[in-house]
């Protein structure tokens, strides 16, 4: 009786409607009706979501489940080493290892002969306070996308903190050159679309080494492309600001290069250590990258 009533109830009918017709489109329609927002923009977001999920999810399903990188937490005693190891022969999913290693060698050579020197020249040529201002400025520009990803993950507090950082630093911090907000104790965590996907249970998929960019995974690289796609300072697919070239392409390239140099400068010591200490830098970077991403998704 009760089940019959429930089946007839409005909630059930609406819920099943959502499921059948595709909850995303339903939500989009509802939002458009409520806010009179531009339908095509909403549609664009939905399509990007759908494409990303469609391209990434099947590969996730097919891929062997990637075991947690921090799995040794499960040990109870030293005797468990043995039984455990037979279960976890392949803990890292790297089906393209051969190809990845080639790209890695290419990146490594490019770095040793060129990019590392650029980063070192940057470190030695420009004083620390100026570098800090550049870093703050670049970081500030990345905050809006990060805040949107926070919302998508339902982390409202972090999203607000990120937005406040962006607003405070853009205004009082003179266009983001000074990180006033963090000095005042408004801390936030960076979120990107790879993390958003991870938050909703998408595994990292296959490990990838991307030319010039370095370690990534099928999920994170897809996420990175999405972030750059919607970012007004990237390809601006959402046409925020009304046109695709909100910022002239020359500036965009300059910003991308600058953030690359800034990033490399921040990694100078770590990369030096890995090159010096590791018996297999490719494996060290792979393991560290996967652990770092997992940690970022978990918190």
């Amino acid at each position, binding site marked *: 009786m009760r089940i019959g009533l429930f089946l007839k109830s409005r909630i059930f009918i609406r819920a099943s409607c959502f499921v059948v017709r595709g909850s995303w489109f339903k939500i989009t329609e509802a939002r458009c009706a409520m806010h009179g927002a531009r339908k095509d923009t909403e549609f664009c977001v939905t399509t990007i979501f759908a494409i990303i999920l469609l391209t990434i999810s099947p590969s996730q399903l097919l891929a062997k489940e990637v075991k947690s990188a921090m799995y040794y937490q499960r040990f109870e005693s030293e005797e468990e*080493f043995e039984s455990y190891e037979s279960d976890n022969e392949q803990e890292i999913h790297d089906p393209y290892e051969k190809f990845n290693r080639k790209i890695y060698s290419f990146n490594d050579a490019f770095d040793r002969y060129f990019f590392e020197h650029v980063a070192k020249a940057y470190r030695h040529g420009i004083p620390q306070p100026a570098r800090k201002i550049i870093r703050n400025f670049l970081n500030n520009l990345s905050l809006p996308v990060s805040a949107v990803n926070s919302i998508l993950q339902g982390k409202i507090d972090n999203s607000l903190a990120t937005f406040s950082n962006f607003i405070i630093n853009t205004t009082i911090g003179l266009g983001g050159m000074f990180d006033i907000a963090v000095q005042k104790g408004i801390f936030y965590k960076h979120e990107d679309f790879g993390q958003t996907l991870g938050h909703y249970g998408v595994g990292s998929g296959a490990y990838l080494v991307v030319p010039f960019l370095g370690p990534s995974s099928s999920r994170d690289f897809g996420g990175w492309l999405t972030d750059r796609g919607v970012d007004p300072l990237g390809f601006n697919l959402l046409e925020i600001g009304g046109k695709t070239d909100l910022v002239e392409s020359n500036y965009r390239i300059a910003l991308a290069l600058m953030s690359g140099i800034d990033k490399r400068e921040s990694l100078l010591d770590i990369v030096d250590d890995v090159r010096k200490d590791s018996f297999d830098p490719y494996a060290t970077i792979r393991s560290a990258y996967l652990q770092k991403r997992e940690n970022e998704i978990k918190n």
Partner: protein
Amino acid sequence: MKLKINMKKILVAFLIAIFSSQAMAQEVSKAKEVDEFVEIIGNKIVKVAGEKATSDAKKREKIIAIIDGVIDANWIARFVLGKNYKTANDEQRQRFTALYRDFMINTYGPKFKNYDGKKFTVNEVKQQGSFYVAKAEFLPRESNVPISVDFRVKEKNGKLLILDFIAEGISLIETQRSEFNSAIAQNGMDKFLDDLAERVKKLKSSGK
């Protein structure tokens, strides 16, 4: 009859309450012990790294002495060898275990520049199975953003020992295991052990 059962129940509940509170008290005191243990080591290292009058060679020696006394090098050696432990023969195992200790302390001892900071604090200690995880924060000298560093600690024969060091979510021994396994898979165990021996020799001689 009914009263009897109730009495029994009450008695059992009472006993459970006593034992669990005792166990909890023990756990709490153990967690506190781990907290102090990690905080003392962390501060010792930060202090040595920040000493201005001490020469680099002396700093290196001091930090090696601190690390050497508090890590369970045998456990870690066993862990980082991973699946290769099973296929290795006794001689290889022993050789690796001996080399690994020297490799660890001589690799991480000289990195005192990385440990130079303003503050080291343990925020929280959690029990995870037979381990304790001390969640700590380290504030480098030239930054306002603290780095999260976790220590995995285990009690062995009444003594606390460090098993792992996890900086910003990246576990030292997990990364090392991945690296060693990959190196062994490519070149074989004996070649890897030779490389390791050579590295240790180089590390030791570079400090003198």
